[in-house]
């Protein structure tokens, strides 16, 4: 029998359709990972883009099986990982609707730098029942004011940052008598100052607060604030500035002697190292929101991230990059623990059960999901001091604090814990 050309075409189409319809083995079907990070706006440069770069690098290398142990296995349990990247800009309301669109397209979500976005997303994740890992935001309120099944956070909170910095400060300046603050007037700046001020009052009762400056976020110019700080006579100036504000503070405060007259703490200062280099004056106390970047312990995983990232992007990875990679590796560890030796992909509930109280190795060291009923990471904290050596900015005098020393007992609120004397 001869087929006419149109019959032949139809047959070919049917065959093709059937072939396409054949289910491929589930091991090869990619896992879709939603990534939410700032791609535009002022937080894109210091955090958003370094985090996106880390996400792309980490998934590519995971898929190729070139990440060092214990993450040598390809993808997540053998399945390749595919990213769906969303811009975090636009505020919590916009992010909630973006999130609602995103969840139907992905298996898991990793994202959120802004605390405001995290607070808005967490209840929605619970409502939509989608495993969501917060990778960067600092507010302790996520797991202190509520408890979630579907939400995890794989990095330390702002409380851990500020308590460790206060401990570091009183070890270096045991007789410190006065402090002052310069923080941005929104959730992050206010919470950071509240935690630091309370920790200092606990560690050094009677310490005097000379002034607490709260300029508008992204004000950029701090002439009057610097004048007030210089005139305040405070021994220590604490700032949780980030991005353009942080760089502006160093550029404007440096020439005016702010860093010579006061011991300045930049609690989120690490991302500025790559940008400002030796312009950050010697003796500045610097934090990286956890043991990240130059504070990372010397492990194979940390060396891998530093080398692979710098090779590709020509700059070292900053703490946002570390936190993103850590979150993705956390999901991988939980997924593979849930999958076990079986072939079938684990259900989301199994992954959640595996993630709770999980201990896994991140590029910043061991991560224990030991707080927030097993949903909040506890890690060692690290703080250091800047020093220019051989024309390069280095971090010296790095002190590490065990995670449980800077974290409130599970179920206790950070503020109450700090005020009660940081007791365990």
């Amino acid at each position, binding site marked *: 029998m001869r087929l006419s050309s149109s019959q032949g075409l139809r047959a070919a189409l049917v065959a093709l359709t059937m072939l396409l319809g054949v289910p491929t083995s589930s091991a090869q079907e990619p896992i879709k990972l939603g990534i939410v990070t700032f791609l535009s706006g002022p937080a894109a440069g210091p955090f958003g883009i370094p985090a996106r770069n880390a996400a792309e690098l980490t998934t590519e290398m995971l898929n190729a099986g070139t990440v060092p142990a214990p993450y040598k296995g390809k993808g997540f349990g053998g399945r390749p990982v595919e990213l769906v990247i969303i811009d975090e800009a636009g505020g919590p309301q916009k992010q909630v609707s973006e999130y609602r669109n995103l969840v139907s397209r992905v298996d898991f979500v990793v994202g959120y730098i802004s605390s405001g976005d995290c607070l808005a997303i967490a209840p929605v994740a619970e409502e939509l029942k989608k495993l969501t890992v917060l990778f960067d935001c600092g507010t302790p309120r996520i797991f202190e004011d509520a408890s979630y099944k579907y939400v995890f956070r794989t990095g330390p909170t702002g409380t851990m940052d500020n308590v460790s910095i206060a401990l570091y400060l009183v070890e270096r300046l045991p007789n410190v008598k006065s402090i002052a603050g310069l923080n941005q007037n929104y959730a992050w700046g206010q919470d950071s100052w509240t935690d630091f001020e309370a920790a200092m009052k606990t560690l050094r009762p009677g310490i005097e607060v000379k002034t607490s400056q709260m300029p508008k976020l992204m004000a950029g110019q701090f002439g009057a604030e610097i004048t007030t700080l210089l005139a305040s006579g405070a021994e220590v100036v604490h700032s949780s500035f980030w991005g353009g504000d942080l760089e502006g503070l160093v550029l404007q405060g440096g*020439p005016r002697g702010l860093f010579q007259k006061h011991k300045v703490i930049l609690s989120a200062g690490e991302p500025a190292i790559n940008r400002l280099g030796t312009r950050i004056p010697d003796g500045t106390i610097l934090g990286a929101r956890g043991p990240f970047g130059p504070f990372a312990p010397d492990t194979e995983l940390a060396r891998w991230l530093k080398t692979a990232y710098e090779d590709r992007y020509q700059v070292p990875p900053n703490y946002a990059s570390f936190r993103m990679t850590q979150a993705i590796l956390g999901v991988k560890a939980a997924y593979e623990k849930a999958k076990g030796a079986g072939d079938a992909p684990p259900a989301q509930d199994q992954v959640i059960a595996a993630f709770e109280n999980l201990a896994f190795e991140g590029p910043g060291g061991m991560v224990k999901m030991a707080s927030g009923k097993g949903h909040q990471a506890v890690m060692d904290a690290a703080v250091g001091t800047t020093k220019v050596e051989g024309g390069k900015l280095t971090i010296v005098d790095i002190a590490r604090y065990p995670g449980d020393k800077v974290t409130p007992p599970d179920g206790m609120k950070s503020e109450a814990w700090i005020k009660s004397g940081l007791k365990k």
Partner: protein
Amino acid sequence: MSSILPVAFDGIAYASWLFLISAGLTLIYGVMRILNVAHGSLYALGAYAACSLAGAWLGGGLPAAGSFAMLLLAAVLVGCIVGPALERGLLQWMYGKDEVVLVLITYAVFLIMEDVIKLVWGVDSLLLPEPYALPGNFSIGGLPYPVYNLLLIALALVTGLALAWALYRTRAGKLLLAVIHDREMSMALGINVDRVYLATFSIGAALAALGGAFTAPAVAVTPGIGVEVIVLAFAVVVIGGLGSLGGAALGALLVGLVRSATVRYWPEAELFSIYAVMALVLIARPKGLFAAQEARKI
């Protein structure tokens, strides 16, 4: 008492910066009745252009003092290229439309330019710290201040006086005032209104860029710097009275002094202080301090 001088100086320095930006905004509104939201991106463009030009100058090993000339050049370039391009390419087709429509159009331009800036310069901040630190410090009440701030104050004074002189003492300025007063009558009298509009918009753009270029050395030039500025400039212009140059100067001074006093004596209220000034002024004078008298038309 000892703290009043530093507070006043900080206030005046901040006011100079505010005035540079507000002058262009109020000028464009006075002549063209356009509340130009894109003024913020012209400011940002000035800052970015300054970073590129002065960065190239310093990178070429040329004398650091010349970088100040590069800041000026950046403002002139934005004024001469982007200003006319926007006015001739887009706005000239929109005249006569409702003021609200024009706000929306310039807002669209603002959003587009924000993205263009990101395309050209990327999302990382640019730094140009040399001109800021170069002139050194001086002292008021025992506190160190950058000489750069004096330069900024001088620049604002010169710009303000030059604008006032050009407006009230030259033929071109008087033609401009005639257009402000009555556009149709001016056309009937043979004034080339198109040319006046082109010149006004370009000068306004150059002023915004001048503000941006001379701010660049003190700050990190990041995406979004134009947003903050446009909100502040609007507040200043509304306080002073839309379209009034003297109003912009007084509004800037008022906002600058109130802000620096708040930062010193009541820091919690800093965010609120500028808008408190605005609200109080508008309660007393709903059209701002120096609103132009509306001519009665029959």
